[in-house]
């Protein structure tokens, strides 16, 4: 799982052109053509988040993300690769250079 980490404020200040969705589209396209892409999406900003937690078994809603932070998960991609080096290789080509990409292995059940 590639977690695409961004500052919402900085990202939302950019125009679509500056965000270079074309390059991002090509990135997903290439992974799909290689047959390693299993899914991915961009997320709305963290201010749109609603968080469910449990208080003594009773679901409670909070307006906002589970953790207030400058940087937040702005999207994700799921790729199937053999090892960490292959994932690093892919993460290193993510076009939006103002982002960070956190690589997390998915637990196989």
């Amino acid at each position, binding site marked *: 799982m590639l977690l695409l980490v961004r500052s919402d404020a900085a990202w939302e200040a950019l125009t679509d052109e500056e965000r270079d969705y074309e390059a991002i589209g090509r990135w997903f396209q290439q992974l799909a053509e290689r047959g390693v892409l299993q899914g991915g999406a961009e997320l709305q900003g963290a201010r749109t988040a609603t968080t469910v937690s449990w208080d003594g078994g009773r679901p409670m809603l909070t307006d906002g993300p589970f953790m207030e932070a400058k940087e937040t998960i702005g999207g994700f991609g799921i790729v199937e690769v*053999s*090892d*960490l*080096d292959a*994932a*690093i290789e892919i993460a290193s080509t993510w076009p939006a250079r103002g982002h960070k990409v956190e*690589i997390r*292995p998915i637990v196989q059940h």
Partner: protein
Amino acid sequence: LNEAAAQPPADAVLSGLVRDQAARLTAALVRLLGDFALAEDLVQDAVVAALQHWPREGVPDDPAAWLLATARRRAVDHWRRRRRYEEKLALLVREGPPFERAGDVDDRLRLIFTCCHPALGREAQLALTLRAVIGLTTAEIARAFLATEPAIAQRIVRAKRKIVEAGIPYRMPAPDRLDERLNEVLRVVYLMFNEGYLASAGAEPDRRDLAGDAEWLARLLVGLLPGQPEAMGLLALVRLHRARRDARFDAGGGLVLLPAQDRSRWDRAAIAESGRLLVAAMELGQPGPYQVQAAIAACHAEAPSWAETDWRQILLLYDALLRLAPTDVVRLNRAVALSHGIGPAPALVEVERLAPALDGYHLFHATRAELLRRLGRGEEARAANARALALTRNPAERRLLAARLEAPA
């Protein structure tokens, strides 16, 4: 203490034997078993057993076979409690001594690159390399870093868990990544050397000579990856510094600085050999920070006396080093060269500029103190020496700085 009860073999011989075998055995077992964490545990158990048995029973004729047999017994214990026991065990028994196979060489490199994978933190890389590649026990690593054994054990467990769970591969880096991955390994060797170089002061005889381990590993890398100029540069650098080690401490374990060292006690053969290695590295035409640092060390090592040091050449080399590695510590060292080549006044100007960045670094204050002293500003020099003293824990350095504070200004 009864003299007859002296322990054969000497600790240094023992740890040398272990070091020669640990990486081979771990590397081979990781490949064979496909389980980094388990293989490393088995070898660690074997190493600990060796350090218990060999001093009492003598070193076996074939230490490698002994370690393998012990690791194999531990493996049997391990798999008895698990399924697929027969299958794995058959693999281990059928293969014989795994390190006698061809392709061995790549195996140890794979191990080194895995331990120094950039997804591991620097401290984890260092601890893991010391254990899996050098064959140190957790207790030895803890002593070397003045850390507790549980802290080091936890660091190693975490690192191994990350290797397994994050899928850090057990193989050579891709060719287009080799340079940056090798740099990562060289950095670990360099830190190992740095950690060991000062700490090897006579005061603590039970501390491991990590500088010696760093030299061993640098030599292994140069042997396994020929034609890598920075690896050659690092080996030359480490050897050049270690060539002076007999002159670095006086009989009482006090630190003797370069100007006062007895140069007849330097290892001339090692210096000459390192010089040749460095020339060979530089002829490859890819300069790098380790080669330049080695060239600076060579300038010092080849000077017949402190007074005849070629400061002009050393300054040029520091300028080159600053272009390759523009760090404040390099700037500080360049200022020292400047003070000897040109004079203390311009050097002090350079040093003062570094104050915001290096205020927490004892050698910044020690350097500043020395420059102030040479400029006749005794009171300020004393204050700077006091700052330096407050910032270092190393006993030999502390004694030297304390002596300076006691000397008349």
